[in-house]
């Protein structure tokens, strides 16, 4: 397969001025990343700073209701509250070994920004975060966390003022600052080598899941589910299964955000509702107009709100190794509430999409089978948004009754 391509998808569609830093990163991925010394250092910081390994927890109450075993891979317990840290601490460490002094990153919901800022603080690196001005507004707590962690926050006011525009601006900034700066890309998408690098750093989720399943269940699970925005938590848990011939019977199911679900409304579901095209350096599935202009996306969960998706997911879909479905805002909110009530875990709205598919389609799973959902993040950050939708959280109304 051509380097940087996953079947028909991938590539390096960037201005020539970005080719040298991407080549430099490619070389680092081939030499520094696999070296035993680097891997030892990474394992140590993942354990002592990020808090790995994360547990594989059985949902006892929900499993009783569903008639099969529901397990959660607890990425919500990773430092800063989501799987993002697996990637950011790895890229920061790699950048440091490459001699880079600073990190730049885009962020949508702010989780990748916070995880980058924390990694930069830990390793003593400078950090600038590009964030759409609309997101700065709606994700205020994460903005404060980034600032507290010492990052410089740059609001982006071009285009739709959201994640895709923050990526444009970070790419522009990297053209200027590439000599001493690493672009810590937040998801398994973008120009080669980012889809491979981010996937390899997130693959620890799937590796741990396989080991834990063998130990706790006695075999591999029957199905693995994850939400898909850019797709890093999903590829992180899918890849070790997809790459393993012994795991060929494990169903891999990715869930895209369907927004409100009303016909004609914006979604964040390029695999189900988009078509192939080029954005942010890659050829992959994309929400676009007939003219090839990028469509705005929408989801109640800011972390899934992106019109593109990583190229490896496009390939897993086309080659039929994984299946992808759409889950609406309302379903995700119901799952958010259900997991909180029944299992004592507040899931991120992103991860709630994956959970919702299981809760609302139990017939899709065999009785007594074992189903793993990647709980990619915790939901404390979503309380404001959830409270606008869930009557349960609308304080005054409830108290008045």
């Amino acid at each position: 397969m051509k380097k940087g391509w996953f079947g028909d998808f991938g590539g390096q569609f960037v201005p020539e001025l970005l080719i040298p830093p991407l080549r430099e990163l490619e070389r680092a991925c081939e030499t520094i990343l696999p070296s035993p010394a680097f891997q030892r250092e990474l394992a140590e910081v993942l354990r002592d700073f990020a808090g790995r390994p994360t547990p594989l927890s059985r949902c006892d109450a929900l499993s009783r209701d569903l008639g099969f075993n529901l397990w959660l891979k607890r990425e919500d317990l990773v430092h800063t509250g989501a799987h993002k840290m697996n990637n950011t601490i790895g890229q920061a460490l790699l950048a440091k070994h490459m001699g880079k002094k600073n990190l730049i990153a885009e962020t949508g919901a702010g989780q990748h920004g916070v995880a980058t800022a924390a990694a930069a603080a830990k390793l003593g690196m400078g950090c600038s975060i590009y964030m759409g001005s609309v997101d700065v507004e709606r994700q205020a707590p994460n903005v404060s966390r980034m600032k507290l962690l010492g990052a410089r926050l740059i609001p982006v006011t071009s285009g739709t003022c959201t994640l895709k525009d923050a990526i444009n601006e970070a790419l522009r900034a990297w053209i200027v600052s590439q000599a001493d700066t690493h672009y810590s890309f937040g998801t398994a998408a973008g120009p080669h080598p980012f889809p491979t690098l981010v996937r390899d750093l997130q693959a620890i989720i799937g590796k741990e899941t396989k080991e834990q399943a063998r130990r706790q269940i006695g075999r591999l699970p029957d199905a693995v589910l994850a939400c898909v925005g850019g797709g890093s938590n999903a590829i992180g848990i899918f890849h070790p299964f997809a790459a393993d011939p012994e795991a060929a019977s494990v169903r891999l199911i990715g869930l895209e955000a369907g927004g409100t679900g009303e016909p004609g409304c914006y979604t964040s579901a390029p695999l189900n509702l988009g078509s192939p095209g080029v954005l942010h350096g890659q050829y992959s599935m994309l929400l676009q107009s007939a003219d090839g202009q990028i469509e705005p996306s929408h989801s109640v969960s800011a972390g899934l709100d992106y019109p593109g998706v990583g190229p490896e997911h496009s390939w897993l879909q086309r080659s039929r190794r994984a299946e992808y479905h759409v889950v609406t805002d309302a379903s995700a909110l119901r799952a958010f509430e259900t997991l909180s009530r029944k299992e004592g875990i507040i899931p991120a709205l992103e991860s709630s999409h994956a959970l919702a598919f299981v809760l609302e389609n139990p017939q899709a799973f065999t009785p007594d089978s074992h189903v793993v959902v990647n709980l990619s993040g915790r939901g404390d950050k979503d309380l404001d948004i959830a409270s606008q939708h869930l009557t349960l959280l609308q304080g005054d109304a409830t108290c008045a009754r």
Partner: protein
Amino acid sequence: MRPISLQQRIEQAGSQRRVALIPFITAGFPEPTSFPQILRDLDESGADIIEIGIPFSDPVADGPVVEEASRQALAAGVNLERTLKELASLAPGLRASLVLMGYYNPFLQYGLERLARDADAAGIQGLIVPDLPLDEDGPLRAALSPWGLDLIPLVGPNTGDERMRAYAAAASGYVYVVSVMGTTGVRTELPAEAADTVRRARNAFTLPVALGFGIHSPEQIRAMSPPPQAVVFGSALLQHLAAGKSAKDFMAPWIKQK
């Protein structure tokens, strides 16, 4: 009969001991109704080649001025199909050569073979695609070649000599040298590395060298040795036009310098 090639066009300016002028304008700017007249003004004011920008929602190689022009054009309904149709009727009245500049996705969605056919019919002689580096340009190059359309490479201060030579092996038309490590946009001064990049590009390519990004005044290239054979100006021109001033006024200082 085929028109004079892009390379010949720039070399012809050189034989008249002047630098060739390549204004860039976003299709449909400042208004779709006034765009044809601006194109004719640029042509009459001494443009050798005119680069027509196809608007894209996510222009990563561009600064705020071109991005805003792009946004306005999209809002006014400008797209590739309409632009090519319009140019097909305007081109026969123009003396300057025409080049399309645009990001890859709108071209890809239009269909690369259809693009080559329709661009040729619209009098276009070359394409510049800022997010399509050498390693990814095979399909577009294959579509353009039967029509004799040039795919103009972009190189910059961080493009090594070896990489320049790899581009040179496949390139035709001219080579676009990016003056700075940055995006398009007006800059008071060009960095010292611009002159060095021009010199390296002139060594690596047999094609003429056009310098762009940040260009607004003839002073900026006066001291360069060797000088670029052509200059491209975009943001400065768009700002000038947005302020309601004429294309002729903008071009005047460049005409005087010859």
